[in-house]
């Protein structure tokens, strides 16, 4: 396919940019000397065939994230299975069952084990298959590749080899790590979005080497050859060392020519590149760590229970083997019927110790029923099914992207119900990385009526609360009228916000009808449609719009659909400004090397005028400068410096007479900031021709300087220019939050979760988002911990190591002081409603995370209502996560969307990836993926809560039933001379765990819900049952074990006493071991199944089927087993039909035992429900009596009570506001009452 012609003007950005496009000084540095280990890679460009043979045979671009392949699956998966201590035990037991020591037949040991292990392995295989399919999706993406003779064609990613020349088109991901050869721009520049790698949202500029610039079209590659020598694959994203040998010349390559896999080409229609690192060698893959296998807290605790049971097992085995040895020594010689003189080692009265040891093994196997073999597999089955529920949940399905929620690993479901701290990324997670021009302040007048989502929600809530408040007030009859009057008063007090709220709500409705313009949600008729010219400050407004339209680095691109232009800007903010300028009537439509063209729709003449502005200089944005300026010359020859930047920076640089609007503007800026808008201040400066030319010559001098000083000089010269500014106004851009984020955060806060924001973005932005999400609010005390003041010191210190060390120490001490001060402040705070927020930046964090400071840091952070860490690197994200995880010992959840979040996603107890946006790294590393942040609420509060309870109850029940069953075997031993005989048939025991009691408990684990999902969402406080671990604490676990012990005693001794001597049939037949065993087993089946029916609180036909079906299955089995040949069934032959079923005593014993076993639990349950009910008990009761529909008021009251005390989220924010108002009201009221007391005479 021949490539499309160039659409754009040829631009040489390098001439325009001041800072970011400095061409590396090739001449100065010369080629890198690449010697020694670590620099052995040789790439023959455009000759991929060379790389198919050794020694240059590098791996292909195929990536694999699977755990197994076809060959390694069996050994590896089996190994994984037997790493579980219980499975190992059962394996040993199965092996030993082949020897005569075993109390059971071999098949009854091996079959369940094979079943259990096989099922787990099948699950592993299925999960790995899914991973494989995902890999395939990535591997089969297509890219255009040079096939020879200047012809390019598409090939899947996995076929790309080192040395291939590829052409990557706009908005495509780079296939592998590439060396940039040329781009659609003349000077070989391209823009790259590295959000997936480091989470930074602004575009990076890469530029090719000078020599490869001529390679501009497909045909140019016909005869292109070159050789690259470079470093070996390594995970370092920001370094690259290599040389390009081309045309007998050697050129140095540095990181600015390297395009990394998983970053994206932006604003550039295509680039050519040659593949250097493929697949596993690429930097991003080198960075990926094997996802650690995570285990949930419950499962870890379960191990302890299993160890406990092992101890119990060993203990009772020891008891019985000692008993056996004693019996063998002293009594067995008398038992002639055993022919004791004629025995093997197993029963040798002359060697009791040896027999005892053999018996120990037997006993260990015999009592193995204490350890539930099917526990692991049942849990796994349950978790897979739970995961299916999560995957299928329509409430977590994102219609826009078509992405459902996905549980990528199913072994952390219950962990979702125990989360204590959420660590969230910002961009792409909380926000959608889309900026909307929202408000502005021009010449001291604030424009823009719109309200952000937070405000709307807060407004609604506030209106509701106030009306409630009103009714409460009016219920006090004495002050009825007065209170009303006061209410009116208070209303007018914050009438401003009220009115605003109303407009908000109405305007919102309008907005829904209007087609939305991306990047623009400004509403104010004073500025729209040319009305601005009627405003008093029309001049300033004009200038303001011109700054918006001129001060940028974007490129317009005609949009054929709408007939207007789309803008490709370096940052979304800039795009929003341009869209805004366009909507205001200042359409930027063309850029040439020297000029920017603007079409002004509403000019004085009434006709659109096209204006050309000559761009003389462009002092571009950098995070250090925090401002950007252009120097333009308009058509009249007037030279203007237009500047936009952070308010603090701009305000510092204002001239004396440029400060007219400073006060009102900064007030507006504060207002905007409080609602979470991103603000920039706009200013200008008029320059005289002479003034400019003097400066320009300086500037050119600085620009052409060669050497390390250049940067500093340029900066200095720019500084000189960017002063004496005149403030025009400020913009407020809404960093658009994802849908439902504030509400979700509010609910999560009410559920008692702590939310930390970790972002790579700068502090101001992070704080803005904090406000927007209600993680911060105005009256919150912000503890900002920074190293700002020590920054300079540190810089100077670089000169001398000694000084550096000292200042390093000083910085640390400074931070420690800040931390301690913060802690003191919190300690001394008396107001229970006071809230603190901790804001810390990445640099400080690097100190705060050091061994000696991290505990102070953590204790401060834990005491703060919200924590925001900004400018943090991916590594730091992971470190913070680890600190929280290990420092507090609580469950952490990390949520993010980009590759920069992978570290923390893997480090946290639960990692959640946002799958809505492109880029799969985060999702691939995550345990769960959801399409939008707001689904987190449902995932945690509904699914997490359910899964936690389900698994906890399930495990408890499992131990209960196995103890109830296993101990009866032990008691029976005491009556058999500890000989290792079991009272039950082998088959019964085999079926007990695998079939007869497994399905009900699985249905408990899958379907149980204490309350419905709506109620879960309405009562977020219910979630706290998880983090507090009320369903799996030792008290509860031992309670269940005690219940098991009790049941085993009841089952065994009731049966024994009833059957031991008397005939059990009218015919006088006595019960033999088979009959007693079958009866006892029937009792156990009834007891444990009734128990689970009592435990369940949610029944569907499935539960009924499984519970009662299990009991029926037992009878059915007994019937069929009895019907089989007596060779197989032995003494159980026709036992049900002939012996048991006709015996009334059999049925009456079953009833008696089942009731007696469940009585204490029932009593306990009733007691708890009546006198010490838990939250869900109350709700269940309300629901059962349908009180929620009859008594709405009570229901709402209960709902509002069911919140965790929290200081974040907008509900808390509204509460704070209401408190404030109440306080005011109180004051007024008291003053009023004073007035009334004073007689009016």
């Amino acid at each position, binding site marked *: 396919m021949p490539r499309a012609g160039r659409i754009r003007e040829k631009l040489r950005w390098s001439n325009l940019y001041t800072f970011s496009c400095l061409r590396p000084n090739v001449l100065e540095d010369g080629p890198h000397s690449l010697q020694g280990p670590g620099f052995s890679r040789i790439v023959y460009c455009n000759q991929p065939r060379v790389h198919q043979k050794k020694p240059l045979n590098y791996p292909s671009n195929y990536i694999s994230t699977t755990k197994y392949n076809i060959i390694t699956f069996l050994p590896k998966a089996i190994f994984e299975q037997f790493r579980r201590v219980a499975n190992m035990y059962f394996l040993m037991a199965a092996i030993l069952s082949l020897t005569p020591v075993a109390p059971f037949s071999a098949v009854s040991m091996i079959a369940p084990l094979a079943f259990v292990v096989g099922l787990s392995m099948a699950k592993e295989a299925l999960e790995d298959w899914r991973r494989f399919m995902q890999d395939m999706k990535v591997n089969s993406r297509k890219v255009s590749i040079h096939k020879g003779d200047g012809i390019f064609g598409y090939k899947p990613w996995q076929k790309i080899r080192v040395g291939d020349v590829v052409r990557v088109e706009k908005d495509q991901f780079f296939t592998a790590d590439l060396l940039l050869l040329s781009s659609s721009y003349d000077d070989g520049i391209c823009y790259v979005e590295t959000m997936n790698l480091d989470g930074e949202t602004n575009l990076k500029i890469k530029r090719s080497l000078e020599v490869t610039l001529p390679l501009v079209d497909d045909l140019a590659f016909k005869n292109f050859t070159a050789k690259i020598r470079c470093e070996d694959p390594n995970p370092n994203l920001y370094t690259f060392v290599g040389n390009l040998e081309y045309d007998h010349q050697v050129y140095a390559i540095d990181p600015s020519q390297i395009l990394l896999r998983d970053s994206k080409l932006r604003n550039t229609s295509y680039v050519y590149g040659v593949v250097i690192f493929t697949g596993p060698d690429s930097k991003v893959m080198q960075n990926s760590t094997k996802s650690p296998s995570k285990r949930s807290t419950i499962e870890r605790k379960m191990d302890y229970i299993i160890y406990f049971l092992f101890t119990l097992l060993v203990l009772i085995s020891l008891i019985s083997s000692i008993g056996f040895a004693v019996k063998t020594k002293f009594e067995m010689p008398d*038992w002639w019927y055993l022919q004791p003189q004629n025995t093997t080692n197993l029963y040798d009265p002359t060697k009791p110790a040896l027999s005892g040891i053999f018996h120990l093994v037997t006993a260990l196997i015999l009592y193995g029923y204490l350890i539930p073999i099917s526990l692991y597999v049942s849990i796994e089955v349950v978790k897979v099914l739970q995961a299916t529920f999560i995957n299928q949940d329509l409430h977590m399905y994102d219609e826009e992207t078509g992405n459902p929620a996905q549980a990528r690993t199913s072994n952390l479901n219950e962990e979702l119900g125990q989360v204590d701290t959420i660590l969230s990324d910002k961009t792409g997670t909380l926000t959608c990385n889309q900026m909307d021009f929202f408000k502005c302040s021009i010449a001291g007048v604030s424009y823009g009526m719109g309200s952000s989502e937070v405000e709307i929600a807060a407004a609604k809530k506030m209106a509701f609360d106030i009306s409630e408040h009103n009714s409460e007030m009016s219920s006090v009859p004495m002050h009825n009228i007065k209170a009303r009057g006061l209410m009116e008063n208070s209303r007018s007090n914050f009438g401003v916000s009220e009115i605003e709220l109303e407009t908000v709500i109405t305007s919102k409705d309008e907005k829904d009808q209007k087609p939305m313009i991306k990047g623009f949600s400004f509403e104010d008729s004073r500025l729209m449609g040319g009305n601005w010219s009627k405003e008093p400050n029309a001049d300033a407004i004009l200038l303001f719009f011109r700054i918006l339209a001129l001060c940028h680095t974007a490129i317009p691109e005609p949009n054929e659909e709408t007939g207007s232009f789309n803008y490709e800007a370096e940052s979304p903010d800039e795009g929003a400004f341009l869209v805004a300028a366009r909507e205001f009537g200042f359409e930027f439509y063309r850029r040439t090397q020297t000029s920017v063209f603007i079409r002004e729709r509403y000019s004085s003449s009434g006709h659109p005028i096209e204006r050309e502005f000559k761009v003389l200089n462009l002092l571009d944005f950098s995070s250090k400068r925090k401002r950007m300026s252009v120097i333009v010359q308009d058509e009249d020859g007037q030279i203007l410096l237009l500047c936009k930047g952070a308010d603090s920076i701009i305000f510092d640089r204002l001239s004396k007479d440029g400060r007219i609007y400073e006060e009102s503007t900064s007030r507006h800026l504060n207002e905007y900031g409080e609602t979470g808008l991103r603000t920039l201040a706009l200013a200008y400066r008029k320059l005289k021709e002479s003034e400019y030319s003097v400066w320009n010559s300086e500037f050119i001098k600085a620009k052409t300087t060669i050497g390390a000083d250049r940067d500093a000089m340029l900066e200095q010269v720019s500084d000189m220019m960017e002063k004496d500014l005149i403030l025009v106004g400020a913009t407020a851009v809404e960093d658009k939050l994802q849908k439902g984020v504030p509400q979700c955060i509010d609910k999560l806060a009410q559920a008692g979760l702590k939310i930390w924001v970790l972002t790579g973005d700068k502090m101001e932005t992070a704080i803005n988002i904090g406000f927007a999400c209600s993680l911060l609010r105005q009256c919150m005390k912000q503890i900002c911990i920074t190293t700002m003041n020590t920054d300079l010191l540190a810089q100077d210190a670089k000169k001398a190591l000694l000084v550096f060390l000292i200042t390093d120490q000083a910085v640390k001490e400074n931070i420690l002081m800040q931390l301690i001060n913060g802690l003191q402040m919190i300690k001394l705070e008396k107001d229970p409603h006071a809230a603190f927020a901790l804001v810390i930046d990445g640099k400080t964090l690097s100190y705060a995370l050091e061994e000696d400071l991290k505990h102070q840091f953590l204790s401060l952070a834990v005491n703060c209502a919200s924590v925001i860490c900004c400018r943090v690197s991916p590594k730091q994200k992971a470190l913070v996560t680890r600190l929280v995880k290990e420092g507090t010992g609580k469950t952490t959840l990390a949520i993010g969307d980009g590759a920069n979040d992978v570290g923390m996603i893997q480090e946290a107890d639960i990692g959640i990836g946002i799958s809505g946006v492109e880029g799969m790294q985060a999702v691939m590393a995550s345990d769960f993926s959801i399409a939008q942040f707001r689904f987190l609420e449902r995932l945690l509060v509904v699914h997490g809560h359910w899964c936690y309870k389900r698994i906890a109850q399930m495990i408890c029940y499992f131990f209960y039933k196995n103890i109830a069953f296993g101990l009866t075997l032990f008691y029976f031993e005491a009556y058999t*001379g500890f000989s290792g*005989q079991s009272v039950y048939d082998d088959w019964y025991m085999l079926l007990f765990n695998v079939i007869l009691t497994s399905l009900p408990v699985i249905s408990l684990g899958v379907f149980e819900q204490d309350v419905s999902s709506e109620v879960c969402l309405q009562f977020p406080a219910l979630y706290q049952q998880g983090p507090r671990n009320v369903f799996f604490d030792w008290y509860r676990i031992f309670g269940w074990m005690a219940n098991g012990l009790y049941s085993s005693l009841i089952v065994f001794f009731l049966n024994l*006493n009833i059957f031991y001597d*008397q005939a059990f049939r009218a015919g*006088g037949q*006595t019960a033999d071991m088979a009959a007693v065993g079958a009866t006892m087993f029937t009792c156990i089946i009834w007891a444990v199944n009734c128990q689970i029916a009592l435990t369940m609180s949610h029944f569907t036909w499935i539960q009924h089927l499984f519970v009662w079906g299990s009991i029926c299955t037992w009878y059915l089995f007994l019937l069929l087993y009895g019907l089989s040949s*007596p060779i197989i069934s032995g003494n159980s032959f026709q036992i049900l039909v002939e012996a048991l079923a006709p015996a009334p005593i059999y049925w009456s014993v079953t009833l008696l035992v089942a*009731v007696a076993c469940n009585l204490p639990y029932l009593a306990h349950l009733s*007691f708890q429900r009546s006198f010490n009910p838990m939250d869900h008990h109350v709700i269940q009761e309300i629901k059962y009596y349908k009180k929620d529909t009859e008594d709405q008021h009570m229901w709402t009251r209960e709902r509002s009570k069911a919140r965790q005390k929290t200081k974040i989220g907008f509900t808390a924010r509204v509460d704070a506001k209401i408190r404030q108002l109440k306080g005011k009201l109180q004051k007024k009221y008291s003053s009023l009452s004073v007035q009334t007391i004073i007689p009016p005479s």
Partner: protein
Amino acid sequence: MVIPNFARYVKSRSDRQLLHGLKYNKTSTCKPEESNNGLPIVPCGLIAWSLFNDTYTFARGMVELKVSRKNIAWKSDRNHKFGKHVYPFNFQNGTLIGGGKLDPSLSLSDQEDLIVWMRTAALPSFRKLYGRIEEDLEAEEVILVNLTNNYNTYSFGGKKTLVLSTSSWLGGKNDFLGIAYIAVGSSCIFISFVFMLLHVKNPR
């Protein structure tokens, strides 16, 4: 007897041989009472070998009291578990004589004492059905029992008891069942009463 459910004892039998006789000659499960002179013992195993062999005859005054020794074993055992054509031809012929002997002319399916004996009891003290007295006995009636004490329990200090009992629809006399029912039932009533009181006192 002390331990009839001792593992070694319980396992020392061959159900196949009981059904098929010499047609099935793998009697390793019957150790140590498996074969004699190269031929498997029929029936093999310790259980059979230690067959109970005390005999009782009853008399009311001078009149013999008829005791029905038929139908004391399960019908299914007689019909399906013990071979109709399997005869105990070499039983108790070895050097060690255990318990009772069997009539070599009767097939195993007709040896009801053996069939009853082969169903090992669950507990160390146990009862086995000897026979049924099908005539009504009067109260205070004296019954003479003539017993032959063949079975050796002296070596391990076992006790033997002869029990005459009337069986009802529930089987033999079973006080414990009744007591247990009363106990569980009354605790149910007690608990529900307590909860009712508590509920009346402070209702929700």
